[in-house]
């Protein structure tokens, strides 16, 4: 077992296989993300991008291979040559470093905005409640909605809910933030608000970010690297400038033509 050294990649996929029944979504995928990098995954739907994020959040179980976080075994490991699941207790320790924002926000509707944000800092991280509240207020400020602290989530627009969801994820102080099509469910005129918030987080923190998005302009601004997926494989990998202006692979060209018009 390797331990966290700081030089290990934040995320490493080793020969990752994911099948849903007979449908092979990922077939021996290898890639790694250095600490603090912002990676955008692009590609047609069904190419496995969202599955990668869901595997990283342990919302799906691997069918084979390993995922390492900071070099630490996360979902599975080899004991001798036996491939075994990492026990939930150890997963929880590693999972604390990973946060996720969902397409459908997934705020808890039975809690207020503030309660949504402080729930896990208090009950998982063991923060004192007034400290958690102070942090939550600071985060609500950061996402531009300090006045909504005591609102119920159903009183908020989609864009506001998503900004609360971002604050909720940040309240756990993650090293890695997964953003799964976070603007896809939003009306076009409020997408910009959410992207502004994410841009600021990208500029002011060193959180490793993995994003799946259709906002190519945004991807171009914030990413260090773009991975083009097709059928569970990385078909092309480049810095955003190269990827969007001078793609080499035919699949990438066709895809970018389709989404950028």
């Amino acid at each position: 077992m390797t331990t966290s050294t700081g030089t290990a990649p934040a995320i490493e996929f080793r020969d990752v296989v994911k099948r849903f029944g007979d449908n092979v979504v990922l077939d021996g995928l290898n890639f790694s993300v250095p600490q603090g990098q912002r990676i955008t995954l692009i590609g047609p739907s069904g190419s496995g991008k969202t599955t990668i994020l869901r595997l990283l959040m342990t919302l799906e179980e691997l069918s084979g291979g390993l995922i390492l976080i900071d070099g630490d075994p996360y979902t599975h490991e080899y004991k001798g040559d036996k491939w075994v699941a990492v026990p939930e207790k150890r997963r929880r320790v590693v999972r604390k470093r990973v946060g996720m924002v969902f397409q459908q926000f997934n705020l808890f509707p039975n809690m207020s905005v503030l309660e949504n944000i402080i729930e896990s800092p208090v009950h998982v991280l063991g923060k004192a409640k007034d400290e958690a509240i102070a942090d939550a207020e600071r985060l609500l400020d950061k996402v531009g909605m300090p006045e909504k602290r005591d609102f119920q989530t159903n009183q908020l627009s989609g864009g506001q809910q998503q900004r609360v969801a971002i604050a909720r994820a940040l309240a756990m102080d993650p090293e890695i933030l997964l953003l799964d099509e976070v603007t896809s469910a939003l009306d076009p005129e409020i997408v910009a608000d959410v992207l502004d918030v994410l841009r600021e987080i990208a500029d002011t923190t060193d959180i490793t970010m993995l994003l799946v998005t259709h906002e190519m302009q945004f991807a171009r601004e914030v990413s260090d690297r773009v991975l083009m997926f097709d059928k569970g494989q990385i078909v092309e990998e480049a810095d955003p400038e190269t990827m969007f202006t001078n793609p080499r692979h035919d699949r990438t060209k066709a895809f970018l033509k389709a989404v950028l018009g």
Partner: protein
Amino acid sequence: MNDSGIWSWETAWDVLPDLLNGLQITVLATVVGMVIASILGLVIALAMRARSRWITMPLRFVSDFIRMTPLLVQLVFVNLLFVQVPSLAIGCIVLGIHYATYMSEVYRAGIESVPKGQWEAATALNMAPGRTWRAVILPQAIRNTLPGLGNYAISMFKETPFLFAISVVEMFSEAQSYGANTFSYIEPLTMVGLLFLIVSYPTSLLVRRMEIRLA
């Protein structure tokens, strides 16, 4: 008696205090029965989610058995088994257990109605399973079960006359004994029906409003 025809207001007035006494027992049995049914029903619903078939199979068998046999038979049988326990207590417990098997289905549906995204958000926030249930899933699930709970409360209320069979002095039994002493059955039984209606109907309106509000 009854010389003025089939209905005597005097008799109706005369039996009312007895019936109101009985109504108290009826309501008491329903409330206690419902408390038992709501708690035990939730316990059953949660236990049915266990992975081990050693838990779910016997539990399924027992709840099917309770649901497939008449409440009246269960009351009389259990009353015979525990002769030293007061009948009213037997009545409440049997009503509670009987309805718990139905309530567990309401809870099951309520739990399943919580969107998958809620579980996923809880995982993403690294919440412990117990905390996820208490803070996220159950508050939402139980909210969805409130109308079902109300409907079963009304239905249990209407089945309390079965307690007559184990000699609990509830409303129906008061009417019967009044009839046995005076040979006037029409007025007491009509009044019993009306009293049931007076309690059930507003409750059902309340449940309907709750359904609309939650929809």
